[in-house]
């Protein structure tokens, strides 16, 4: 073990910068600990406790910046220093770059870019509504990422937008793809002739990714925010979005993605399909009755994957029967893998633990799993009787959505920050009744940029831990994303497979595989 250090004089950074820089350095291979702190006596005493105090630091003063690294080798320590220097430098240059022209208001921005046509708003909810209304009054379309926008404000905005031929995506709309551009948390998808209207962000991501991975493409993907299809808003933007796709000559097929809309809204959607929509419509209303979709005049899909596959098949000129064959093949494959994975388990290993970062994906997985293995526990279960007493402690078959408020207090969303899930992965592996750990990995802008690198060590640790006890845990994952995403789907897939993860083509397939394994092992209710 080597401990090395550097002293820098007259450089000031804020505390979070320093903590994150040190943390990034600690995550490098062979680095055990790192600290970047001002040289106060008190910090020195913590450096000492941590085994990081070097003689050279003893005379450093309060205003000197101390950098200390503990690593397995000289080489690893040097790498850590390089990384720290580079990160600190980036922080400095970023601060300088901020000098580029930034108007103080929407009006200022319009002077600079008078032909702007879209405003993305992600400021605090109580201000976001007013900013959105201002944008609409200037004739601009709006994507409202912010949540906590009051309901009456949402209705006011959407009515105004409808009357003036404008889009209001959101509030709480995490993703959209307009004219090929991924907005906020979206995947980089192929352009094509399939249009999507979605009241669920990750749902939209999963469907658009499946379509791209199948070799078809997206014309437009419009997000509406989850509240749009509830009774109060009455589906205003869902309906307007469908109309816009019907009018769009580049859209040939329309996919609808949502949790079950309020019956009033559903009726409006059905009426619209019957009266105005000439293009084929595929519908996935997660947790709803497919017959309802059918009666509304749309082709029903059972899963997000199916919705994507049907649309892609149509776009590629295949018939629905051909599509059904593909699905049957996939089902057989899943059963075969499940049989294989059920054989290498120790007595008592029989449950699945789903650790999710995407809320809609977690819902979908629970809906599919309960059909195969009965009710499952969770922090937001389908059946309220199966709500975990303590969301941090899993029991039997459990699916947790780590994006829920109780887990995200004060920290970035788990799609960005993997710390919490990595911890849970290792914890679940300690439970001798666990046979399968199921994960979603969501790529795209806004998400974690190195999911493979960050997940792999935790999975490896979990596997090793179980192996010491003679257990083999099956890791199943789905990757929502494409090869055009900055993270690259194939690359992430390979990184996960290298540590023994079974990567399935969709969340639905991953959830089914996990459930079949559990069923084989007798873990069903």
């Amino acid at each position, binding site marked *: 073990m080597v401990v090395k250090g550097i002293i820098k004089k007259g450089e*000031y*950074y*804020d*505390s*979070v*910068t*320093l*903590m994150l820089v*040190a*943390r990034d350095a*600690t995550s490098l291979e062979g680095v*055990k*600990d*790192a*600290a*970047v*702190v*001002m040289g*106060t*006596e*008190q*910090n020195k*005493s*913590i*450096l000492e*406790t*941590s085994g*990081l105090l070097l003689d050279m630091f003893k005379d450093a*003063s*309060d*205003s000197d910046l101390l950098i200390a690294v503990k690593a397995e080798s000289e080489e690893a320590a040097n790498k850590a220093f390089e990384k720290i220097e580079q990160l600190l430098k980036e922080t400095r240059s970023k*601060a*300088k770059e*901020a*000098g580029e022209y930034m108007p*103080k208001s929407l009006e200022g921005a319009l002077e600079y870019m008078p032909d702007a046509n879209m405003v993305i708003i992600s400021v*605090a909810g109580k201000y976001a509504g007013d900013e959105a209304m201002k944008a609409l009054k200037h004739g601009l379309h709006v994507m409202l990422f912010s949540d906590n926008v009051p309901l009456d404000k949402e209705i006011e905005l959407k009515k105004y937008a409808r009357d003036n031929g404008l889009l209001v995506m959101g509030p709480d709309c995490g993703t959209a793809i307009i004219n090929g551009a991924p907005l906020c948390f979206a995947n980089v998808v192929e352009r094509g002739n399939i249009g999507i209207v979605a009241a669920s962000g990750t749902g939209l991501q999963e469907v658009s990714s499946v379509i791209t991975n199948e070799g078809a493409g997206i014309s437009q993907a419009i997000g509406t925010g989850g509240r749009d299809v509830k009774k109060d808003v009455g589906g205003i933007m869902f309906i307007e979005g469908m109309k816009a796709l019907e009018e769009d000559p580049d859209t040939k097929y329309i996919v609808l993605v949502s949790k079950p809309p309020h019956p009033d809204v559903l009726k409006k959607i059905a009426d619209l399909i019957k009266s105005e929509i000439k293009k084929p419509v595929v519908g996935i209303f997660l947790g709803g009755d497919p017959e309802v979709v059918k009666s509304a005049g749309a082709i029903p899909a059972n899963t997000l994957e199916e919705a994507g596959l049907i649309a892609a098949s149509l776009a590629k000129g295949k018939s629905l029967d051909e599509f059904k064959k593909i699905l049957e093949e996939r089902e057989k494959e899943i059963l075969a893998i499940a049989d294989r994975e059920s054989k290498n388990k120790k007595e008592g290993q029989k449950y699945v633990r789903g650790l999710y970062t995407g809320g809609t994906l977690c819902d979908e997985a629970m809906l599919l799993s309960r059909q195969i293995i009965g009710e499952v526990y969770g922090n937001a279960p389908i059946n309220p009787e199966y709500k975990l007493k303590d969301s941090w402690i899993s029991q039997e078959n459990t699916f947790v959505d780590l994006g829920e408020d109780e887990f995200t*207090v*004060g*920290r970035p969303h788990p799609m960005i920050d993997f*710390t*919490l899930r990595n*911890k849970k992965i290792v914890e679940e592996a300690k439970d001798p009744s666990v046979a399968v750990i199921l994960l979603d990995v969501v790529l795209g802008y806004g998400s974690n940029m190195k999911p493979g690198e960050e997940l792999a060590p935790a999975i490896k640790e979990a596997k090793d831990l179980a192996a010491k006890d003679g257990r083999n845990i099956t890791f199943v994952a789905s990757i929502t994303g494409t090869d055009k995403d900055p993270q690259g789907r194939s690359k992430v897939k390979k990184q996960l497979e290298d540590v023994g993860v079974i990567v399935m083509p969709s969340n639905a397939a991953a959830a089914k595989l996990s459930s079949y394994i559990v069923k084989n092992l007798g873990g069903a209710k």
Partner: protein
Amino acid sequence: MSLSLVLKVNSVGDQVRFGGKHSLSGYFKIHSVFNNAVNFYIKRDKIVSLVTHSVGGGPNNIVINVDSLSFVKSIYIDKSKIVLNDSFACDIDSSPQYNSNLIIPSKNLELFKKGLNKFENILRKEASPLSAVFLIDKRRINFFITPFEKNLAYSLESFSNDILNGNLKSASKLKGLGFGLTPQGDDILDGFMIALLVYEKLTGTNTEEIRKKMFNLSRGSNIISDTFLYYASHGFLYERVKTLVLSLFSNDPIIIENAVLKLLNIGETSGADISTGFLLMIKKLMQGGIKWS
């Protein structure tokens, strides 16, 4: 000297003194430059800060009506005006004064406690994960990951508790603990002193001696930190802190929320760390006080 531009000065802190018989003039040494603030020495151990309007007033702040101060390279002072980079003049003589004294609007403890609860709830929800708020919300300890961070969190906790249990001497151990220009430990101490001041105003219990002892124990060579601790110990508050304290008597959740969020905007964790110190100390005092040793 040709002056091309005049910048508006929104306020000058009541503790800023250049003028009088020993009026200072000449170029002043800059300590540090940030986007929102430029700190410079007016004596070897005294700092005055030029700040943007978003930072707001303070006992030693000169608030300039600009959005950024990162351009500042030199500061020249000539009795009635400050000249930046030899070209931007700021008239400080006729600008309004910021009053850093705290006068509380009510001594209604129930109203105040209600305000404190609201304050705490917002803090738990909104504060940066790397702040000292883990001292209030234990779940947040999970945010500290590396061995060094864990040791740091442990020390912050044990020295803070020492002080809350009356062991004043631990102020010298808390001071300087943590990352950044104003380490977390310093900000917690700042919060402690502000709480002592507010408690004095609420109950009439004199806390001046404790505050001053605390300051003397925590003095070091970090001039920025020492400056703001000095003002807190003497009962001179920065605008954001003062606004927050006053908001606690408002009985209006929106006013409190706005004030807390503004305070949390100071530095990456400073606002949250000050808030943590304030809440820990005021609660302890109101639960029956502290026997100092």
